[in-house]
């Protein structure tokens, strides 16, 4: 597996982590009604979108490099 393929795996894992953090902070907000957790959840959701956009950009930019 090349660095390109491993990077895709890494970005996918990061997206899952940030989606989990979004849910975790939102649940914490529902329990505590603290706006800090809500802001946290929104930031994590934005980072999910950012990472997906970056992943697509990365794949386009390195389309000529092998996955092996």
């Amino acid at each position, binding site marked *: 597996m090349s660095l390109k393929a491993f990077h895709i795996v890494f970005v996918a894992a990061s997206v899952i982590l940030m989606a989990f953090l979004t849910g*975790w902070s939102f649940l914490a907000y529902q*329990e505590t009604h603290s706006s800090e957790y809500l802001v946290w959840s929104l930031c994590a959701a934005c980072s999910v979108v950012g*990472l997906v956009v970056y992943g697509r950009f990365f794949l386009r930019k390195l389309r000529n490099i092998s996955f092996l």
Partner: protein
Amino acid sequence: MEIPYTYKARPDTGLYNAKVGIWLFLASEIMLFGALFSAYILLRVSAPVGFWPDVGLAWPRGLLNIPIGTFNTAVLITSSVTVVLAWASLKMNNFARFRVYMVITVLCAFAFLGIKSFEYNDKFSHYVIRLQDGKALTGHIEVDGKHPRFWNFSDQWSVAKLATQKVTKIKVEMDPERDMNGHVKAHGSHDHEVREVAVSDIAFMGSYTPATHPFFAVYFLITALHGLHVLGGALVLGYFAFPGAKMWKSNPEQFINRIEVGGLFWHFVDLVWIFLFPVVYLL
């Protein structure tokens, strides 16, 4: 003698030798970290029901600083992006850009370690104190007007040591109250109550360090081992960015492969953190 297959693919594996080597090494690393993660999970699921520190060996929750942990996660994700962009820059024959991305990667690594040492320092001055009446207090202590520091092991306090040094009272900057999930109850209020505790009232005291609770033992073991990997990776990537970059002129293909191998190790180290952060900080 020339080392074979440093940049050409070996016919039987279809890969250059260093790539096979790094994946074998990473497989052994997965077993190492996998064993430590398993130890953490087994200790956690077998911990007594209840809330630490009220129940002595119950699993503590909410003790780690989540904003700092999240920031460190972002720092490592950024470093993975820059290391892969450094490799891609070399593939596109742009050495100047490679060096910029590599320097950013190394800076991110040292930023991560700096933030981690700040977190460690906090744990070494954070204490759990059990009083003679059975109540437990947690907070940062002050002995003779000084906070303990993690680089000074003689700064670690116990009841016996306080008695030996004839200290009669200590100050405790109390932690805010937490709910059963570890969330701070009164969010927004950052005022900490400072309480004076007589040493004669203390039955036990211990800092948030490995000897106090299995959580801290596993936390320090995994994060310190991960930190050593970050340090090792940063030194190797720093070497490639400056003294080792001479190879770019003599053998560019092998140099690109070296950066790829270094980048694979760096991604592995960052991936370990991607698992470590939710397991240790959030759950």
